[in-house]
């Protein structure tokens, strides 16, 4: 059809640290050595948590658990750009974000063992509880951003979700509202290439997820999600833009889910070992180690120490989590509403007295 062009768009990709450990200095964000070291520690701690969680699940000490193996940089890099006072709306596969934000680790183990009380964010941290229903928490982040704007607060809001979530209606409705009001919100998508057994290419015919932002009139960018510096930089810039009234940004972190979907899944049913091996070569931690070694920021001894320290932290967290007495049965009636109804109170009493 011969027609006249009325709009053109481009989608960009940001990469800084390649898998050989070389960083593009022109793009490198300004980070002190201590920041880089801290990022590294958080990456290792996240992976260590993940390994332990998988073990605990096998031992029956926690329930179904979604591994973040391979996605640590996307989570730590983005969370490292956040202020404590920012508002975070996670999905269910965000252990690395929790860890980087300083969420108490025992609470995380408690939660994954099937105890709601693990989701009580400490005062001072505005991390919303895990949202299990894929993508449906996106409008919450948008509403919170409306509230931030209304209150003239400096906070920014971030929502985490996966490639699968980009197909949900709530993604669309939330993005539409965020764009229409130019809200201070960052949408951070971890495109880990899979939604359980559904590969990204069959989830949507769009070549990139980032280009979905065009539908809403704001910026979308793809970043190498296994590159902690690129993720950090893109998130920090998006947050600054949000705080300065520049509106929303959609960041597609191009990464990979190296493990099964959850401990209940068997990924060998639907994807090849070669694909997984290929992605293992892009490991986000390996490449940071290479860079740090090149820069003299990490010796073999440092590496071992960081890992040992991580193991200790995780050990302590597991111990603490497991020492918490299980919730009383009436816990299910508490915090349901501020004041339980007469019927709910009667049921609670009845439950204690083992009534019908």
């Amino acid at each position, binding site marked *: 059809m011969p027609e006249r062009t009325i709009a053109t768009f481009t989608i960009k990709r940001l990469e800084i640290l390649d898998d050989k450990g070389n960083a593009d200095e022109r793009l490198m964000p300004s980070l002190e050595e201590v920041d880089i070291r801290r990022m590294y520690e958080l990456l290792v701690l996240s992976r260590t948590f993940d390994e332990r969680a998988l073990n605990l699940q096998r031992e029956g000490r926690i329930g179904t658990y979604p591994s973040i193996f391979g996605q640590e940089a996307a989570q730590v890099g983005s969370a490292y750009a956040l202020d404590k006072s920012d508002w975070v709306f996670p999905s269910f596969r965000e252990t690395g974000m929790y860890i980087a934000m300083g969420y108490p680790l025992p609470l995380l183990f408690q939660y994954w063992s099937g105890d709601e009380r693990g989701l009580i964010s400490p005062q001072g941290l505005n991390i919303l509880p895990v949202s299990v229903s894929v993508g449906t928490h996106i*409008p919450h982040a948008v509403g919170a951003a409306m509230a931030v704007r209304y209150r003239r607060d400096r906070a920014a809001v971030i929502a985490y979700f996966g490639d699968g979530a980009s197909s949900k209606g709530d993604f669309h*409705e939330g993005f539409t*509202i965020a764009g229409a009001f130019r809200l201070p919100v960052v949408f951070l998508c971890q495109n880990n290439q899979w939604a359980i057994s559904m590969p990204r290419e069959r989830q949507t015919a769009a070549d990139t997820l980032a280009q979905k932002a065009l539908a809403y009139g704001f910026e979308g960018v793809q970043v190498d999600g296994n590159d902690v510096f690129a993720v950090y930089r893109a998130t920090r810039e998006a947050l600054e833009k949000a705080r300065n009234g520049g509106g929303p940004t959609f960041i597609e972190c191009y990464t990979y889910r190296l493990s099964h979907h959850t401990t209940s899944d068997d990924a060998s049913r639907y994807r090849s070992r070669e694909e997984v091996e290929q992605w293992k070569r892009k490991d986000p931690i390996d490449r940071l180690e290479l860079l740090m070694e090149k820069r003299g920021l990490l010796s073999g001894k440092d590496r071992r120490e960081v890992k040992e320290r991580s193991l200790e932290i995780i050990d302590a967290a597991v111990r603490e989590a497991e020492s918490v007495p299980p919730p009383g049965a009436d816990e299910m009636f508490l915090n349901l509403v501020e004041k339980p109804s007469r019927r709910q109170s009667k049921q609670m009493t009845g439950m204690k007295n083992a009534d019908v």
Partner: protein
Amino acid sequence: MPTCNMVQAINLALREEMAKDDRVLVIGEDVGMDGGVFRVTDGLLGEFGPERVVDMPLAESGIVGAAVGMALYGLRPVAEIQFMGFIYGSFDQIFSHAARMRNRSRGRFCCPMVIRTPYGSGIKAPELHEESAEAFFCHMPGIKVVVPSGPFNAKGLLVSAIRDPDPVLFLEPTRLYRLVRENVPDEEYTLPLGKARIVKEGGDVTVIAWGSMLERVVKAVEPYSADVIDLMTLSPFDEETVLESVRKTGRAVIVHEAAKTCGFGAELAATIAEEAILYLRGPVLRVTGYDVHVPLAKLVDSYLPGVDRIRKAIDEIMRY
């Protein structure tokens, strides 16, 4: 003390609460310039500006979801769904999120928000504009369901709903919007949620209803000495008042316009059958909409329980 219709009373409640509490915002489709398709939010935009009276894109799930986010942040949004038939698109947000946030976070976060929506039949509008879907929401722990029956209680209940620390679904019977005028104080008053209103006292039969059915019930009971109960809050409903009356009269008739099967009348009847059966003289009767979809204008009057059908049920139960 001005006399007003229900639209004006609700408008007044919003206006007063917004003036008093800067956490209160109104969001929805066409709530701003247009003042809402029923004019319920008329004038609010002018008085409070576009930051507090927010016209939203056509996205019911997004509207309720955004209200959840606002409430989590500490505001007290009042979200309008233009007609109850379009609330189904936000069902997931209401049940999976608004109703569960306090529970999920063990009280660390909560959702003080109101969802207002015009509800029920009687305006001869297109499909999905005359739904009475209250029962769905009464099966959801974590959210309250309120139905006013007149201007005075509409204002008092809405103020309470806005101040409630948990989500409240506020269903406004469209047929009543402009039907009657009442004296409605423009000073502050509230009516407690969860408390029924005894419209009329009598000894022979208890008739329970809410919203737009009340008016018909009052006509239908004329020949009898009846307790007429206006529930006003369906969830949690005022069990004590219902049971006390039924224990006194020994006869219960429930009237609602929603389809019968699994309508809220089922819960009322079940509660009576569980808690007051030994006082009953006869069956618990339900006079309700039929188990069909609300028909369009030509048949909607045949669908709705009319005074005749209600009267017949009372005649029948009085034979016991």
